[in-house]
């Protein structure tokens, strides 16, 4: 049974590689992300710094209003040569001492501009391996641009405002998505064959799954993302 499957897979792969990429058969990945919460409730109830009375007031309302799905990035780790994503543009604005949006997913080669919409200076920088940069101080109305040529996670901070933080997920291809409010996402025109779907969440980290994408039609995949009420390192 297993051997039969393997033979079938091999055959499919040969057929797939023989087929021209331009006229590829394309399948669809229909995914669903579930957020699982409350892994470390105990700690959450009584964090040390709250006992001290020194903590930054927990922004309870804001937290509940946040759509956790909007903080999840989905992309395909290409197993085979994929069409190079077109050079595109994206924007990560700074407004009200926050980044907008806080999660940006772009394909490799994208140029992201960082316009300062606040009436104060910002100084955007990143230490991430995928792209290290420091845009320096610049005032309201000005912008700086960074071109991301390497896939990976780029976390962005502001030197002046220590609470500002955003993540740019530089996907290796144009197949990327963000789940909707219902946790569903769709990746269309995915080349058939074995594909690795990656889900990244700030706190939960990477979750990878390999799936078999049919030449036509769709395949379903679901991810459980464990998110702590208080997110933290790792």
């Amino acid at each position, binding site marked *: 049974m297993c051997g039969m499957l393997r033979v079938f897979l091999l055959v499919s792969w040969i057929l797939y590689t023989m087929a021209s990429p331009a006229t590829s058969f394309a399948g669809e990945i229909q995914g669903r992300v579930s957020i699982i919460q409350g892994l470390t409730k105990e700690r959450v109830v009584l964090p*040390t710094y709250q006992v001290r009375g020194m903590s930054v007031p927990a922004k309870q309302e804001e937290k509940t209003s946040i759509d956790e799905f909007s903080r999840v990035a989905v992309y395909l780790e290409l197993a085979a040569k994929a069409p190079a994503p077109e050079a595109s543009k994206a924007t990560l604005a700074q407004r009200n001492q926050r980044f907008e949006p806080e999660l940006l997913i772009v394909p490799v080669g994208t140029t992201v501009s960082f316009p300062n919409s606040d009436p104060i200076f910002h100084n955007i*920088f990143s*230490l991430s391996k995928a792209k290290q940069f420091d845009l320096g101080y610049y005032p309201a109305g000005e912008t700086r641009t960074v071109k991301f040529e390497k896939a*990976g996670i780029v976390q962005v901070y502001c030197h002046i405002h220590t*609470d500002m933080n955003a993540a740019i997920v530089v996907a290796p291809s144009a197949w990327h998505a963000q789940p909707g409010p219902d946790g569903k996402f769709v990746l269309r025109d995915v080349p058939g064959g074995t594909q690795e779907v990656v889900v990244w969440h700030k706190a939960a980290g990477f979750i990878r799954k390999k799936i078999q994408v049919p030449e036509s039609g769709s395949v379903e995949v679901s991810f459980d993302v464990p998110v702590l009420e*208080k997110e*933290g390192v790792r």
Partner: protein
Amino acid sequence: MKRQLSLASRAFFFAFVPMGLTLGASFFAINKAVGGRIKGQLRLSLQRTERVLASRDAEYRQRSLLVLSAVAENSSLKAVIGLLREASDPKEQAQVHEMLADQLEGMNESLDYDLLLLENPQGKPVVGVVGASQARARLDSEPIESIAPDLLRVRGVLYEAVPVPINLGYENLGTLFLGKQFSLASWSEAGYAALWQEGKVILTTFPGDRREEVERQIQQRCGGGSEECEITVGGESYLTLAIQRESFGGRVRLLTFQSIDAAMSGFTKSFEGVFLGIGAGGLILVLLFSAFGARSIAKPLTKLIAQLQRSEQVDRFPTDLSTDYQAAEVNVLAKAFSRAAGAVRDSKQRLDEATEQFIETMAQTLDARDPYTAGHSDRVSANSTTLAEALGLPPEQVEIIRIGGKLHDIGKIGIPDAVLRKPGSLTPEEFALIKLHPQIGKRILEQVERFEEYLPIVELHHENHDGSGYPHGLKGEEIPFSVRIVHVVDVYDAITSDRAYRKAMTEERVWEIMMQGAGKEFDPAVVKAFLAILRQQKVLHEALEQVSLANA
């Protein structure tokens, strides 16, 4: 015999002992009371000091926390922590950890803490640096023991840490613990200090060999370390105070031990000096007053007693005691004694008079029976007295001789008249009867106790010096001296007076008999003295006669 205390000692004892005891007791009580008060004050001041220290400490911690929170608001630190989110394999993680450690050390250059520890929000240590600035080392997988919320033990060293939360927006990235090596030194400046955790001393400045003793005492006396109490370690008492310290939570207590003895010693020393001075002075004063008082009370009595003793020596009942003793009671006593002594003397005199009269009566009774011997007893008595005085006998002896002389022939009462009043010679039988009279006299007088001292004269006045007398034939020194005197005088009177059986002898004959009797009938010395008296009397008599003749 039971030893009797003198009046002065008694007065001294009862004056001094209660006063001394009262003084001592009040000294002790005051000492105790003042000691207790000092202790109370000391305790209050210690408590105040501890409170001030504790609140200052809390304030310092609060300020540290504020400062350190500001320091932790560091984008670079947060960015490095954020890198852990991108790290997809252990190698990358290790690199990030290295970066974090560098970052922490960089931060610490200005802060100079002994322990830096970053924990993730789950409370798991991520990276740590330990040690003083010279010898810092990375913490690897060593256990980090959490003694209390902010008290950590790493590599056997206690660190007191300030936990600084690191937040990114509303997210918590972890907690940074900035720790200083915990030291009890600042708490034990004036004594000792200890950390107490659930029945155990986990750190103390007491010497190691005292630790168990301290532990035991705290368990027994301090309600398991939660209450203020007093313990005694190595013979010294300490006031134990539990310091309120937030960072230790509920399980660990900081106890300080202040030596009460040491704190009190300075004060007590000066205080005791003053009190001992006052006490000793008071005691001496009491001693002097007691001694003086006792003397003053006893003095009049002592004086009275001395006077009585003097009177005793001269054998006289004092009826004229002085009444100037400076003490009313003693004066009254002396007066009463004088009156009583007077009464006794009077009654004794009356008794003596009665006795005298009785003796006189008895002598006269005899004289009445025998006219020939009338006046004999009186003459013997008078002459014997003269002789005894001349021989230098003591007055008592003379008095015995005087009365004995009156009574010496009383036994003749028991001799029949026929014999006693017979004129002419007596037959041997009659003479034998006569010879019984000394013993009869003795038997008569024996009945009266008072006459006992006259018995020898009555019984033995016919004994001769050479042992030829009767009734016992005693001789020489066997016969009492008083009897020898009466014997000489008796014989003299007998031969110089008329008797029923013969006439009185001539003077020459009398002298001759008396001279011849010396050494035979009489004691020679006594006869000699008697004859000397007679000669004197004769010379005197003749001189008087010539004077009266001349006058006539």
